[in-house]
């Protein structure tokens, strides 16, 4: 347990010194600030680009437009940047042989995997929660609407849980791949497969992808959170499986 804590601290220092955390949190905050702004400016932009020739009656933007932008930004660009930033988590250490000294001195290999995973999870949670509160604050300020905090948090929970799955997938890919691209290509490959599975309507709620697809519906109250429970369980089970797989992979790997 003590070794795990020390390795965890090492990971946090590393992510700070390599500017990964700084980049992640800045990017997420920019996405969070852009959401209410884009929602607010879209009608003006359309009007300006049409040059007032058409007398369009555009609907006023609402709080839901702001949240729509938030979930669109985070689930597309946010996840992409997360994957790019963390793709080298394991593969860089393996290619630079920085783990050799530690392992030969008797460091259990599973602590490497777990400490890395926990540090990724902490960074994801902090960056995502901060961006949620920023968007929440601005949305409440600019678009007075009666959205209960419960609804906001219910829409947010699946996204947060999706991170558990995503980060396990990135770590697995990073360990399996021979270079930095493994951490990117394997999550991409799995995502494509999940999108194909998503074509089958009956399996939608079991698919981890529904965790990042139905947030707005949950926020608006058109879909109860409990319907996503199978998807959440599948995501958590898959992450445990992937983490176990990562430990097995690392154990069999020549460091």
């Amino acid at each position, binding site marked *: 347990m003590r070794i795990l804590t020390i390795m965890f601290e090492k990971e946090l220092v590393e992510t700070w010194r390599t500017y990964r955390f700084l*980049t992640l949190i800045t990017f997420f905050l*920019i996405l969070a*600030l852009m959401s209410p702004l884009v929602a607010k400016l879209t009608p003006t932009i359309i009007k300006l680009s049409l040059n007032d020739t058409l007398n369009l009656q555009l609907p006023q933007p609402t709080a839901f437009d702001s949240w729509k932008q938030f979930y669109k930004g985070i689930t597309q660009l946010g996840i992409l940047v997360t994957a790019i930033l963390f793709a080298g988590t394991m593969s860089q250490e393996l290619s630079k042989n920085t783990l050799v000294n530690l392992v030969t001195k008797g460091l259990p290999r599973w602590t490497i995997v777990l400490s890395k995973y926990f540090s990724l999870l902490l960074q994801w949670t902090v960056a995502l929660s901060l961006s949620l509160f920023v968007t929440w604050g601005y949305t409440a300020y600019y678009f007075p609407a009666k959205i209960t905090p419960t609804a906001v948090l219910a829409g947010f929970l699946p996204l947060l849980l999706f991170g558990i799955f995503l980060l396990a997938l990135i770590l697995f890919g990073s360990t399996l791949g021979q270079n930095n691209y493994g951490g990117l290509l394997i999550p991409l490959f799995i995502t494509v497969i999940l999108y194909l599975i998503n074509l089958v309507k009956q399996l939608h709620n079991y698919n981890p992808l529904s965790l990042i697809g139905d947030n707005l519906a949950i926020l608006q109250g058109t879909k109860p959170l409990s319907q996503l429970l199978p998807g959440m369980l599948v995501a958590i089970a898959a992450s445990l499986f992937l983490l176990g797989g990562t430990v097995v992979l690392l154990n069999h790997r020549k460091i």
Partner: protein
Amino acid sequence: MNNHWQLLMTNLPLFIPLVLLEVGLMLAALIHALRHSHYRFGNRVFWIVVILFIQIVGPLTYFVFGRGEN
């Protein structure tokens, strides 16, 4: 014109932190690029141009792909 001014003023609470974040990220990347002489690829001039002229994506690319080892 008056309309645009009003648009800017009502959205100022959003613009200020947004500009601060972008400039902050840009400065962090710029200072790092100037202090270090080793990059994974490209040279100093290339990275300074990328950081200064490509909003958000430029500094991000530098930190992820360009930053050399200490």
